[in-house]
């Protein structure tokens, strides 16, 4: 994925860093770059993620040094010093994180000298080098997450004494996972049902207090490859063990497995766990029963192509194949995962269904994705708003699961866990149904054409 890209869905490291910081309550990013970087992230990162909002101080309110020609020629550190000094006076926050763009990185500004000054003056300001040319949005998440964890002690008091039953969640990237809030909430709900305490670290009510507790957790849970380096760092530094999952759990089977893995690791009471799983099983089955009529009326057993980040694509494919009877044909993984990790998840996709090996691709270029879909012989696309054009051309339904989503609004929807899988079934069935109803309209239009009437 080193060449040019058509309609990239992965943006850059700076944008990944910004939206990760914005996901934490009370954390304020300070962009040290040219003026447009923040607005690019607003239009291309926030608004294109299920029409998300500016939030506490995002969009046009995001502090940014807006370096100009003068700073490009003479350096931008004094402009940054001024910007930091004034940001803490204007924007209320618990922590401020300076993130750099390509311009100040090429100029070579020493940002850590500036944040060191602020820290010495008693302001909670840390920094990270996050220029866009270093990588894409997922890399930006990985990078800033680890940077914040490393500097956490300088902006808050860390509680290091182990807190039994406390779990941190990593690997779900704010905005790039268009359902990040809902996904985190459902994972939290499930674990709390087992009597555990959960810091999702991002989203509602997750701020400096929860971040200060990170070292005290009994366990870290990682839901994609992008949270792995942080979990490793926390294991090395604070001795916190972690469980690394390749995908988000979707549906009864995977979520029950997930619950069992966690409870085994934490030695939870097996009876309580079994009882909880049984309760959720009955709940999900109750609703799945309700979808059977329409499922068979319209032959929901589609052969599908799925396009998205590794964790989401694998989680949703596992559910649709192993519990809902769909047939995987084409898998397109768009999140630039490392070479050795590719092989690892390719195996997972190939073993989804013994009788049908899908073809797995690792690309993020829209043109190439469309070319593959054209020859895939599929009757359902599961992807992003960028797949709208090809789904129209191929005349097959499209279910959205991945970034970007530009024409639907997401607040706390989730496809994760027990409840999320039911929402996924609602949405997928609705897509298929409205596609079938459109066929009726098309036939009606044909009937009205004088030429057809003449034949009839």
């Amino acid at each position: 994925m080193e060449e040019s890209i058509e309609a990239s869905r992965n943006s850059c490291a700076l944008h990944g860093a910004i939206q990760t910081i914005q996901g934490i309550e009370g954390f304020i990013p300070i962009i040290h770059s040219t003026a447009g970087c923040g607005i690019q992230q607003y239009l291309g990162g926030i608004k294109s993620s299920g029409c998300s909002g500016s939030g506490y101080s995002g969009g046009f309110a995001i502090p940014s040094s807006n370096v100009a020609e003068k700073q490009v020629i003479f350096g931008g550190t004094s402009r940054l010093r001024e910007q930091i000094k004034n940001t803490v006076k204007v924007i209320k926050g618990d922590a401020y994180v300076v993130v750099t763009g390509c311009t100040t990185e090429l100029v070579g500004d020493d940002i850590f000298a500036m944040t060191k000054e602020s820290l010495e003056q008693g302001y909670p300001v840390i920094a990270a080098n996050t220029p866009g040319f270093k990588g894409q949005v997922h890399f930006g998440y990985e990078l800033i997450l680890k940077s914040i964890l490393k500097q956490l002690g300088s902006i808050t008091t860390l509680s290091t004494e182990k807190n039994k039953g406390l779990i941190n969640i990593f690997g779900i990237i704010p905005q790039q996972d268009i359902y990040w809030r809902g996904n985190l909430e459902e994972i939290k709900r499930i674990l709390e049902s087992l009597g555990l305490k959960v810091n999702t670290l991002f989203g509602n009510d997750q701020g400096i207090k929860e971040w200060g507790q990170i070292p005290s957790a009994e366990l870290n849970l990682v839901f994609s490859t992008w949270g792995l380096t942080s979990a490793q760092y926390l294991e090395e530094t604070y001795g916190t063990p972690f469980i690394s999952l390749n995908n988000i759990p979707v549906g009864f089977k995977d979520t029950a497995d997930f619950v069992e893995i966690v409870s085994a690791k934490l030695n939870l009471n097996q009876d309580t766990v079994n009882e909880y799983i049984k309760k959720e099983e009955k709940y999900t089955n109750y609703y799945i029963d309700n979808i059977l009529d329409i499922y068979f009326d319209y032959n929901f057993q589609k052969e599908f192509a799925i396009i998205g980040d590794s964790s989401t694509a694998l989680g949703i494919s596992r559910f649709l194949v192993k519990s809902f009877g769909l047939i995987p044909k084409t898998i397109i993984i768009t999140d630039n995962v490392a070479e050795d990790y590719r092989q690892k998840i390719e195996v997972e996709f190939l073993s989804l269904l013994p009788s049908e090996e899908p073809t797995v691709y690792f690309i993020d270029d829209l043109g190439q994705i469309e070319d593959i879909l054209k020859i895939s012989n599929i009757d359902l696309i599961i992807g992003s708003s960028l797949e709208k054009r090809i789904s129209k051309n191929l005349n097959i339904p499209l279910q959205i699961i991945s970034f970007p989503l530009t024409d639907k609004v997401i607040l706390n929807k989730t496809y994760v866990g027990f409840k999320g899988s039911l929402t996924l079934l609602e949405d997928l069935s609705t897509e298929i149904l409205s596609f079938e109803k459109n066929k009726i309209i098309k036939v009606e239009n044909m009937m009205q054409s004088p030429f057809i009437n003449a034949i009839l």
Partner: protein
Amino acid sequence: MDLLEQKNPKTREKRLDTISAFLGDVSNLIEDIEKHDVKQRIRTFSQSYYDEILTVFQALSGIKDAVIIVHGPVGCAASGLHYSQIGRNSRFYVTNLKERDSIMGGDSKLRHAILASYNRYKPSAIFIVSTPVVAINNDEITAITRELEGELNIDIIPISSDGFKSRTAINGYDLVFHAIARYTRNKKVAASQEKYINLISLSENKDDLKELINLLKSIGLNLNIFPQFSNIDNFSIALKADFTAAINSNEGNYFGQLLEESYNIPFLKTKPPVGFQRTADWLNIISEATGTNDEASKVISEFKVILKNTFNEKILSDKKVYINLPASVAISVSTLVEELGGEVVGITTPNIDDLGKDDLLYLKNSRNNFKLHVADGQPFEEGNILNRIKPDLYIGNLGKNIWAARQGIPVVSLNSTGIYGFNGITKFAHVVSKALKNKSLVNHFSENKRLPYVYTWFNKSPNWYIKQEVK
């Protein structure tokens, strides 16, 4: 051929003394403009705002048969996901420059992007949008574009944007027009049988554009519209038009002036057609030039009757209104607010310059000590101003509205509602009356105090962080 001879256009700051940071009395500003002694000010605290790369992208996304290649790191094309939704052109690439390319140069990636987009879409033209990384490294891209232009036999048009030389995004429109004009000057255009005028549209929403097209068609004019809803040919067709009008003549200034200077096509000096008087003025100027006065008078008097009730209602009487829009549009909207009985108590505009002198004079002459706020975004300053003057209504655009709404002020957004032309008046009156009728949502916001500012900020003067630039 003054403008066209330069490889790159001068920045708006150099060409028109454009400023992007100011808060103060309009009469002082007018004085400075008249003396050609406009002081550039900067902010010592700032928030992100549109840069020229975004306006370049937005302008180009209107041209249907072209491909846009952003030559830079991958995030520089992020807004493409947004613009490809609202424009007509959804075909965009990014050369995906990495750290290594910023040292070694990104030639091969640019070549790859050009060939890939050509093979896939066979576009009529390919635009190359430059970014800070390319500008800082002084990457020379014309060698590749010339070579491939010959090889592929299509037009490859580089836009020399850099994102840091100008502080005002409107500069991006000039860059686009300059590049396209240099490209069209060698084009042969067949003379048309019919007469037509150019209509430049850059930032208007679809409702507004539709309304104005209908209005000009109703007086019998043929239109050549660009860059919104255009093909690349519309730019060469422009060279044979009788006149040029821009819906927003500030945004369209560069191309209008260029057509006038280089091709003797008069650029009609119009104000954005919002409100009855300004729409009538707009139509009168165009009809005067095109000899369609009778038709225009007829349309105007028809609408005078139709709109009588709307104006009699005076739905904005006793209401204080704040406007955040580009100056020329803001003044036109002010006239409409006044026609509906309201009072404009403050304006924020992203920039102001020589072209806005008339607008400033209008403000000076119609009000006492009117203060103008020049800022693109910077909601922290605007929030401070709004907290002082507590308007009854706020009129603004995408991304800026919510900050006013969070202060409990009813908001009318012009992002999707059309307000231009005669029919725009009733549409505007309708959204205004709804905003004033039910304030439950904005009241909820103000009660919940969702503003991100340190409370002492509102005690400071709103221009606290605006300083004169030290060279």
